[in-house]
């Protein structure tokens, strides 16, 4: 956290964050925690909470930006004694933060674990779930420890378990640490993994809201999405929408990484421009480097370049210029790093993380890697660019089983558009211009070739 927060009211998500030592239960309550949950449980019926969330305009912060209230409203509600009622419903917090260049949830998980616990109580109450899971990225050891501690405290203080705060509502909350697959960020693959099955996405329909974990109605929400709930309940809809009057409601944690002066995370009102995040908060490019482009929301979004810098970072505006807000974590590319190598690196990641279920993703991503690797190493041909274009089309939305491959394609297809010259240079010159070693090697080979030719010529001349 580089910038000091001046106006806490406008930074609800991070106001309680303390990475050194998160607030313990008592301190958290004193700071105003568990008030939102209290309001929800004791003053509202579940359907009233649902209305509040619906009307707040909260959209999912995991990347897709689907309205949270609407997602919840698909969960079937049953009257008491209804024969068709399932014996359970589930709430799952998606804390499997594996998107390259994204680390916003980690901040919330490590810095304010009680906030997530409180949020999950509210969400579970609304949809009528009595069991909830936090599906946590396996590498987040510290978060796991702190969450466990917070959950323990919540049980002790009757915020979890049976008859929470003397209401009729019961909730058990578990932390499940992932075995580590990017695909688990996909909610149905996550559910499969949680059931102990292979992490393949599921066929939809049925959507998890109707038939999810163990075949029961299930809601999977991103950590950041959930963390908004206590504040909405506590402060009201108008306050929430007032944070960002000209954009999607609420605040958003934006981040930046790459060769910027000041990489980090900042909670800003929804709709801050790319320029604001890049130059005002991240401090601009490091000395001696020029800005080339950026991925606005993690590795699976399209490149944006200088002309797009004044775009507000909300779902619709970023989509209009041909990319996605995604997680809101910028990955910034400078002019001394090879865009081909960057795309190759990303594609390697996606090829590695493909679950292997559908053909375009399973066999298409490694194919793209093979072509990109050849181009990067100076063995590319012009036709390879056509192959890449074709592969981008091959793995596009609607042709694959889930969104992994289209996401993998996004940086590639936009790189082909914005950095076309770099690809051409690699192919025509047979080397990468950003890599001094490769240029030197290339020069050496060329020189030995000339010498060899000269020698041959002279020997022939001798005959």
């Amino acid at each position, binding site marked *: 956290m580089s910038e000091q927060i001046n106006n806490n009211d406008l930074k609800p998500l991070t106001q309680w964050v303390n990475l050194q030592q998160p607030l313990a239960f008592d301190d958290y309550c004193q700071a105003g925690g568990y008030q939102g949950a209290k309001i929800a449980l004791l003053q509202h019926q579940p359907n009233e909470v649902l209305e509040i969330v619906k009307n707040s305009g909260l959209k999912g912060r995991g990347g897709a930006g689907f309205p949270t209230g609407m997602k919840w409203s698909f969960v079937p509600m049953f009257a008491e004694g209804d024969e068709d009622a399932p014996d359970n419903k589930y709430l799952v917090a998606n804390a499997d933060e594996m998107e390259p260049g994204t680390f916003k949830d980690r901040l919330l998980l490590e810095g304010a674990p009680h906030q997530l616990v409180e949020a999950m109580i509210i969400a579970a109450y609304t949809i009528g779930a009595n069991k909830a899971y936090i599906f946590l990225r396996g590498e987040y050891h510290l978060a796991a420890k702190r969450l466990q501690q917070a959950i323990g405290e919540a049980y002790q203080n009757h915020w979890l378990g049976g008859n929470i705060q003397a209401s009729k509502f019961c909730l058990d909350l578990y932390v499940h640490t992932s075995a580590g697959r990017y695909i688990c960020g996909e909610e149905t693959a996550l559910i499969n993994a949680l059931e102990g099955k292979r992490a393949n996405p599921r066929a939809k329909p049925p959507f998890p809201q109707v038939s999810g974990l163990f075949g029961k109605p299930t809601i999977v929400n991103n950590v950041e999405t959930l963390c908004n709930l206590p504040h909405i309940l506590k402060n009201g809809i108008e306050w929430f929408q007032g944070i960002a009057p000209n954009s999607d409601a609420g605040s958003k944690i934006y981040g930046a990484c790459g060769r910027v002066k000041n990489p980090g995370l900042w909670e800003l009102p929804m709709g801050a421009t790319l320029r604001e995040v890049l130059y005002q908060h991240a401090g601009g490019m490091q000395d001696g480097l020029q800005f080339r482009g950026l991925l606005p929301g993690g590795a699976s979004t399209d490149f944006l370049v200088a002309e797009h810098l004044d775009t507000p970072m909300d779902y619709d505006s970023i989509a209009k210029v041909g990319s996605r807000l995604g997680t809101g974590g910028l990955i910034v590319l400078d002019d001394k790093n090879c865009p081909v190598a960057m795309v190759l690196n990303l594609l390697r990641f996606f090829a590695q993380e493909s679950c*292997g279920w559908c053909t375009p993703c399973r066999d298409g991503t490694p194919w793209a890697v093979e072509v990109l690797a050849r181009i990067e190493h100076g063995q590319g041909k012009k036709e390879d660019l056509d192959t890449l274009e074709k592969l981008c089309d091959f793995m596009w939305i609607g*042709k694959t089983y889930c969104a992994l491959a289209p996401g993998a394609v996004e940086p590639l297809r936009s790189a082909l558009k914005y950095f076309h010259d770099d690809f051409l240079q690699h192919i025509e010159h047979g080397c990468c211009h950003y890599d001094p070693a490769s240029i030197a090697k290339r020069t050496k080979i060329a020189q030995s070739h000339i010498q060899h030719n000269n020698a041959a010529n002279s020997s022939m001349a001798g005959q």
Partner: protein
Amino acid sequence: MSENKVTIFIDDVPYQVSSEDNLLAGVLSKKLNLPYFCWHPSMGSVGACRQCAVMQFQDKDDNRGRMVMACTTPVTDGMRISIKHADASEFREQVIAAMMTNHPHDCPVCTEGGECHLQDMTVMTGHSVREYQGTKRTFTNQYLGELVGHEMNRCITCYRCTRFYNDYAGGKDFGVYGSKNQVYFGRQTDGALESEFSGNLVEVCPTGVFTNKVFSTHYTRKWDLQSAPSVCSHCSVGCNLSIGERYGSVRRVMNRYNADINGYFLCDRGRFGIGFVNGEQRIRKTKGISQQSPVALTKLDVAKVFSHFSKKNFIGIGSARASLEANFYLKNMVGAEHFSPGYNDDEMKVAAQHAQLLAANNPPSLTAIEHSDFIFIIAEDISQTAPRMALSVRQALRNAAKAKAAKIGIPSWQDSAVRTIGGNLLSPLFLLQSTSSKLDDVAEQTLLLPPEQLSTCLVALKAVLELVEVNNNHNVEQALTDIAEQTSLGSKERQFVCSLYKALHQAKQPLIISGTDHVSAETLQDINNLMQALKSKSDVTEPALIVVPPSCNSVGLLALLDEKSLSVEQVLSGLEQQEGNYQGVILLEQELARLSDSQVKQLRSSCQTLIVLDHSQHRLTSIADIVLPVAAVSEGDGHYVNYQGRAQQFFQVHAPVLPIQESWRWLDNMAEIIGVHAAELHAGTNEGAKKSACESLRQLHQYFADFLKQWPTLLASKQAGTQQAATARMPHRASGRTAQMANISVHEAKTTQKIDDSLTFSMEGQSAGQSSDMPFAWAPGWNSNQSISQFQAQINGQLIKQKAAIFIPVANLLLNNPRWEIAKQSHKVSQANASDHQTLKSLRYVQQANIYFDEWQAAHTAEFKMLQPSNLMSISTSTAEQFGVKKGQWCKIIFSATNDKIPLVSQSIISQITINKQLPETLAFGNFSLSQLLSQQLEMEISLACDQEITDYLSHYNDGLISAKLSKGAVLERLKINDQTIPIRLVSGGLDDA
């Protein structure tokens, strides 16, 4: 499938397709080509391979369209799609190109070559130029046993194998490993596949990852196989097979689609058990007949031997594995009063009860089983004795999940969606049995009881049905308590019957399955009583009933039995008492396995002439006076009757080397001399009026119809059939036929003339699909068995050319003979006995059924012998405690008889022990057989085996495996030598054919 047809537009052409299936099924049912991999007509859609992409348009004016996967798209009225659209066809080509990045392109050495779905689909999409320049990923293959080969590099990751093996067939030892483009399908470690349906992987896999290992070792391309439609001879289900042959040896069995029975799948006994036809145990020469000509055995040679027996009386013992024709011929030849099915007294009583049940209930087909929502299996391990039926039972259990999915609008073909929704939800299956079975994992409740006590539950259920008037669960428990007081019903039994009753009450299509092999006549009678009680109840849906007999023609034999039929005991005593009366005994494909050695001796000594007709050697062939080698199923024509009474014809795949000929031809040769004794001849014909020989099956049927009264009531409709256009046994591409004999003579040999049926021994004739009985499945562009969709009226429907099934009536004539009735007294006595024995703490040992070894013919297959497991016995917890033994320990078990009627016998067995918590104290089961003398009440003594005993046993066990392996090698060597001198038959008839 239903009649809900709607109109859809495919490339602007209107088509009528079913709205209850997906778009891919609809497109294929119209015989349009659309490639696919992960979809399977029987396993539904998962949308993994993305191969069946088409463009879907909103309406007529929509030019852009949206790409959808046909297999996951429901059919809606008026929908407009395009298969030919450039975007869709380009995408389909790309999918193949992507799959092919790692495929090894080793088609020349691949067993699947020439019938590979991947090849077909590649050609269909037009992908022909490889653009990928990278290296291919490679895998290590596994040893999966003797039946299925594994070559993972060929895998295109369609997930069909695991969906079949794990999801559909309930296998546990197979799965998916790894991820990204390194997905591995196999077992955790090397080892034989445990599922009874592993062979289906060969057909389910769209390429050559899983191959028929037996076929691979003596391989020929599909287009060089000569095939004929056949029927499985290994159990009573009657699965339809396509048997392939080349150069006089049977090469393989493939599934032959039958919408009512096996659908797309076979069990491993049916697929690999055909090995017996090529086996070392086959009888190839006659015994007791001297051959005059050096060239061949003639009818005259046979006539000379049999001329002594003219007009003499014989006892004929038929069998449940001989064809309907042969059994019928034998019965009429010797006369009904001299005919025996080869059953002993107990088996005759069972047969009588079976006939009674069959006469009163119409057993459902396998397809109908799959619609049941409640199944109760009594005393029959169908997973081993009728495995294909067990597979259908598994599918039926998914009906609860399908119903749940339907409630939220998910159709049943959305396989992964239905499995997600269903979770572990299963329709109720109740198992009442004496051994554990492969269906235990999907059963709602399993109750293990000694065979004699199984009836108590049936009696209790019947009593409950009679006591409880209306649907009132409280009443059930009350009624059970009342019943328990009167009988010796334990709490486990009470609970079982209670849940059974409740589940039965809610069922809309209940089904009860039992058997005849391990079931007493009394139990069958109790089932009959139960069925009667159920019929009279208005608040319970009357269940369908299936009784599973052991053999392929058990029901056919049953239909021939009447009050005069003899048991083996009667045969033996008859021979002793009226020695002069009988010339001898004719054994028709009957090994009399249940006869004790002393009874066999008795038979031999009291019988003047013992004539054995069989295809394989057994203890009776070695002591017979005359042995006549008969055709195995692939070498002849005839009919088998399945458990339902469905008569199905099997066709000759290849003419056997003479003197091997069908049993009915031998009987025909004999009848000409001995005469026909049947009392049921049509009026106006003389006894023994057999004058001219029957040259073909058609002539035989004509002769039966003309002279023998019973025949028209058996297979009447069969006669109405007119001569069909001939169908080719060989595909059009068959190569090398004209060169078959080139190493002997360059002159082209004449093809064998068909005389029995409407199939030719050549590539000439109408194409396979035009026939009601397809010798093999092939359609233009579809070389694999998946081509079957081109011949179905609609996906999973009947074949377009399917003839109506013929069911033969089973009259209940056996019970006219009071000898086969169950005495009221004896029933009670046996129950009393059971309780007596309980107090005596004696034990009942039951041998588990086994898919590979239970059927006499299939058990000769060398590959099966190599799968022989070592001894394993399950005992109850208290027995284990009593003897202080633990799970997994090698023990020495001494069984001894407690019945004072039998002289004291004992037998010791070295076996591993496992403990089954559900077993009652008085029951133990294992995979080894005990001496027949020890079949009843036993005492058991268990002690830990010493090292020497274990070593001795294991070395003996290993010797068995090694000798099986050697015999497999020997068979293969002989077959390959035989390939050099191809037997050519000019006519597929019998002796003396032209």
